[in-house]
């Protein structure tokens, strides 16, 4: 009955730019099995990525050979640990086309955004004139979008509550894009900062950062870009981006957990007061008060996550060797194939742009009459790891009138076989819950 063209495995498979088999061999975890011997089909890189051996080896090397607290002490290990930590900073800077002193290591994207949000409210009460430049207060406005991850929404809501500023946002169109029709009325002379994601973690949408940044800069506002889902998956050069501040997480880009980055134009970072204070961020401390180091040290209080930073340095080397342009093309091909294959399954609706134009590899969908948790459970039983729920972007699922979605995300080790497993798994979920539309069983 069923046309063979609608079966997985027979769609449009453009040759993949990356050698999936060779790459898989670099990831130890991909050799394990799950749920009674099934091959692990890992389609949850958007939540956290798996780690290649080179990253794990580099972290182990740090602990086995040079472990010490960077920027403290004058012994040989301290020198070598400091050098390794600063080399990692240089590697991250090179990766995004920045200067090393514009790269601040944070715990993750969430902490990086909170750092900026707290710096903006601390600015209002800073005793130093140089730190008051970007102070936010009553009458000021912060602009976000309706597609933000909670990490790029809740800190701004909180900033507004602390300062009396007003939160405004750009809405979404039905096909999963930012509605820019009222850009000029939302972003105005009252706007102090525009915070937006470069790539939606749930819709996959890639936003026109430059266009929005141009408007923001025209009215004198800062632009913060959440790059948690873009920096791991596409070439990002801060010279072209149009942002003043960029945040991303190491663990989503083959690096360790517990390490992330805040990049800022030096002039902007230099005008921000500290968020966390304490050791190694100070210039002079007296009982009566203290002065602070210039960026990036001003924002790195306490002994830093040195081994994790060094591991992240290895991750960007791994990505550079693959080529970020090829990583992007690889995911584009997989996304096109997944969208095509899922469209063939009756009852499946993709939430987000229906094609690969300005779209990354986060594919969210609903299955008629099967809750995403139940879809995820059937997929899990087949060894397929996806994310289910609201993906920390509750306003987005609310906007599209669904309680939750199932989300597959792709990365460098993903192949067409993984997408086939996903699509076949969705059909299995429909069969299991007895909702297989007629004629497609």
């Amino acid at each position, binding site marked *: 009955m069923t046309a063979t063209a609608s079966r997985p495995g027979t769609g449009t498979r453009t040759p993949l730019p990356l050698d999936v088999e060779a790459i898989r061999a670099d990831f130890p975890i991909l050799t394990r099995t799950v*749920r*009674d011997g099934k091959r692990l089909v890992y389609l949850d890189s958007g939540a956290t990525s798996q780690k290649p051996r080179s990253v794990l080896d580099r972290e182990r090397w740090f602990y086995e050979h040079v472990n010490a607290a960077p920027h403290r002490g004058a012994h040989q290990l301290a020198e070598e640990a400091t050098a390794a930590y600063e080399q990692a900073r240089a590697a991250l800077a090179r990766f995004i086309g920045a200067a090393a002193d514009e790269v601040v290591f944070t715990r993750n994207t969430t902490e990086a955004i909170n750092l900026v949000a707290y710096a903006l409210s601390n600015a209002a009460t800073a005793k130093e004139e140089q730190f008051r430049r970007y102070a936010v207060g009553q009458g000021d406005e912060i602009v976000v979008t309706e597609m933000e991850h909670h990490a790029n929404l809740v800190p701004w809501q909180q900033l507004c509550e602390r300062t009396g500023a007003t939160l405004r946002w750009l809405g979404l169109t039905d096909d999963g894009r930012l509605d820019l029709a009222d850009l000029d009325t939302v972003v105005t002379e009252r706007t102090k900062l525009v915070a937006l994601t470069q790539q939606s973690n749930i819709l996959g949408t890639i936003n026109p950062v430059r266009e929005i940044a141009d408007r923001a800069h025209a009215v004198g506002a800062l632009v913060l870009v959440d790059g948690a889902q873009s920096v791991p998956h596409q070439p990002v050069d801060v010279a072209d981006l149009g942002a003043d501040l960029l945040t991303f997480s190491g663990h989503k880009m083959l690096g360790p957990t517990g390490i992330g980055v805040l990049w800022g134009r030096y002039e902007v970072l230099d005008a921000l007061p500290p968020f966390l204070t304490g050791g190694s961020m100070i210039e002079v401390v007296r009982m009566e008060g203290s002065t602070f180091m210039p960026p990036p040290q001003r924002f790195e209080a306490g002994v830093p996550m040195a081994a994790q930073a060094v591991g992240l340095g290895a991750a960007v080397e791994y990505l550079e060797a693959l080529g970020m342009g090829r990583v992007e093309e690889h995911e584009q091909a997989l996304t096109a194939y997944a969208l095509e294959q899922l469209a063939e399954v009756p009852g499946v609706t993709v939430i987000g742009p229906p094609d690969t134009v300005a779209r990354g590899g986060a594919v969210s969908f609903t299955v008629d009459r099967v*809750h*995403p*948790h*139940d879809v995820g*459970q*059937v997929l899990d*039983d087949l060894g397929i790891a996806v994310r*289910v*729920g*609201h993906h920390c972007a*509750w306003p987005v*699922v609310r906007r599209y009138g669904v*309680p*939750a979605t199932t989300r597959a995300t792709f990365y460098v080790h993903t192949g067409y076989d993984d997408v086939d497993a996903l699509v076949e798994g969705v059909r299995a979920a429909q069969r*299991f*819950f007895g909702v297989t539309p007629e004629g497609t069983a």
Partner: protein
Amino acid sequence: MQLESMYQEIILDHYRNPHGRGLREPFEAEVHHVNPTCGDEVTLRVHLDGETIADVSYEGMGCSISQASVSAMYDLVVGKTVPQALETGEHFVTLMQAKGDPSVAEKLEDELEDAVAFAGVSKYPARIKCALMSWMALKDASARALSVTHPATPDGGNR
């Protein structure tokens, strides 16, 4: 497939044909509980006759486990006193902590009736909260209902 151990036929039946669904009057307390990790929601009302639960009515959205759980709970608790219902709830929590141990389910079969079918859920830590959401809502709502109907003597007094 291990799926059948979680999705017992009884669970799927409750999911497809939920018992007692819909919000009804009268009621002494209404609560709204959400599962913040996945967005599942339930609105639940309790109507007491003295200390006895005369009705539990609810609306909710969520996965098959959360929806079947509230339906099975409705069957178990209507007609019981609040303390009896809460004791049944404790048994259900015990079942959810059993990590799939069949001996726990066997011991609780009489107390939990259909709800013993949720034993398989206890093997999946991520889904336990789905099964427990409605029981947490019931605990909350019945405490509030008692405080309305028995304001000075929450243990029931001497009526």
